[in-house]
């Protein structure tokens, strides 16, 4: 063999590339065989669908699905049978794509947006004093930090934890000290809902337009002292609602999104003016800028 190589190298003489070609071919064959054998010996099975789904997802790694990033969700879908419509930022298209890879029908999920259930601006909500601590709502409510400037124990703290938590820039702090949701940017991932220590942000279907914009469970008199625009639990809206969509639990009304027809009756009867219709507010408000936040349509 080596003798032959030597002969070849010698014989090629003026045309040394023949030897080179032969040498490279031989090395190539050797490693080709080695790799083939290797791939057989060290074979690892990976479900190709994981990669496909991971590619199809939005790649925001926002965690809205409840898993630690897009790839983790993809693995959960394939290996643990997680639902295929959990990718909020990706929307319908992504969910459909994931469902297609998994070979199931796309489950319809109406896109949701975040709504801030507090209208207690500095003028409306009574204040107990001033807070000088770490600028994070959660820091203002930890034991020993006093529990927020406002008298109302359920009101927005206004330190912008939700704004910082939003991965899409869909929340901005308004001039009135309350966060505003920019509906066009909101993907309904729910990060803000999780971040808010007061639990005043919740997700609602995009079509829902009528909301009780107060989260306070204070009783009538205490509520009136705490905030001029708080829900006092008077039940007028409950009686007025033709769709029986409103309930009052511990002095606070809430609207069932499924039953609500957005007829606006409750908005008119509320003595505190805390039930708002975004649609009507929007209609009566001439937007100077299409990107204007829906929540600030006063």
């Amino acid at each position, binding site marked *: 063999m*080596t003798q032959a*190589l*030597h002969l070849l*190298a*010698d014989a090629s003489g003026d045309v*040394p590339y023949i*030897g*080179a070609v032969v*040498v*490279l071919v031989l*090395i*190539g064959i050797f*490693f080709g065989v*080695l*790799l083939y054998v*290797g*791939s057989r010996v*060290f*074979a*690892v099975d990976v479900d190709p669908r994981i990669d496909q789904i991971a590619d199809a997802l939005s790649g925001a790694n926002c965690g809205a699905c409840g898993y630690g990033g897009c790839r983790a969700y993809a693995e959960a879908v394939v290996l643990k049978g997680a639902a295929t419509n959990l990718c909020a930022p990706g929307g319908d298209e992504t969910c459909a794509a994931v469902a297609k890879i998994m070979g199931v029908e796309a489950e319809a999920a109406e896109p949701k947006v975040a709504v801030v259930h507090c209208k207690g601006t500095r003028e409306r909500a009574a204040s107990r004093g001033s807070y000088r601590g770490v600028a994070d709502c959660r820091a203002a409510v930890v034991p020993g930090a006093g529990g927020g400037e406002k008298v109302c124990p359920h009101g927005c703290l206004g330190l912008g934890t939700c704004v910082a938590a939003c991965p899409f820039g869909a929340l901005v702090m308004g001039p009135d000290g309350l966060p505003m949701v920019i509906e066009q940017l909101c993907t309904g991932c729910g990060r803000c809902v999780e971040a808010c220590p007061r639990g005043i942000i919740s997700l609602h279907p995009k079509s829902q337009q009528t909301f009780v914009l107060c989260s306070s469970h204070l009783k009538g008199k205490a509520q009136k002292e705490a905030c001029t625009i708080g829900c006092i639990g008077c039940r007028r809206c409950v009686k007025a609602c033709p769709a029986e969509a409103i309930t009052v639990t511990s002095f606070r009304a809430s609207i069932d999104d499924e039953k609500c027809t957005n007829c606006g009756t409750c908005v008119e009867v509320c003595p505190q003016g805390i039930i708002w219709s975004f649609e009507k507010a929007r209609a009566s408000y001439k937007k100077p800028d299409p990107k204007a936040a829906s929540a600030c349509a006063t």
Partner: protein
Amino acid sequence: MELFRIGFGAIFVYNFVLAKFLGLCPFIGVSKKMSSAVGMGLAVIFVMTMASVVTFLAYMALLWIGASAFLQIVVFILVIASFVQFVEMVVQKVSPALYEALGIFLPLITTNCAVLGVATLNVDTFKIGTGPEEWSVVGGFFASALQGLCGGLGFMLAMILMSAMREELESLPVPKAFRGVPVAFVLTMGLALAFLGFSGMI
């Protein structure tokens, strides 16, 4: 003494990353966490040592059959690429966690210029069969392996220093424009400037 000079030089003075600026891709890419940096470092040490050995043998074979220098780089690339492919398969099978951590960078070692760098450097430094400072074949073999090993060690040293810094960097208020890779390059600049201090030693 000569071997000490080779080793010390490859680790500090001619550090592949910080003095020769080879292999920056995995250096920047995998140095975010100390654990994966160490894994990558180990992988590079292994590949560089083995590549030194394998390419040395290949080079000897080339010399032997008389088809020498002009085939050098082609053959080296072929050998290293195949070899890394093989290592990748083994790692994936043996340690899936390490495979996950290294991600795309394990196959990228194939194109890690540091590996090809050490192979050509070996040939250039030890000048077996040519040049005035001739090494014996056996001596050249061990010197090549040592240079590969220490080149890898130097790479790992740089990786560890870098990853310790970058772990802290995560919590610092780096300007948005610099976040991630840019600031890593600034750090690399600082490290390279610091390693200038080694120049002239050995």
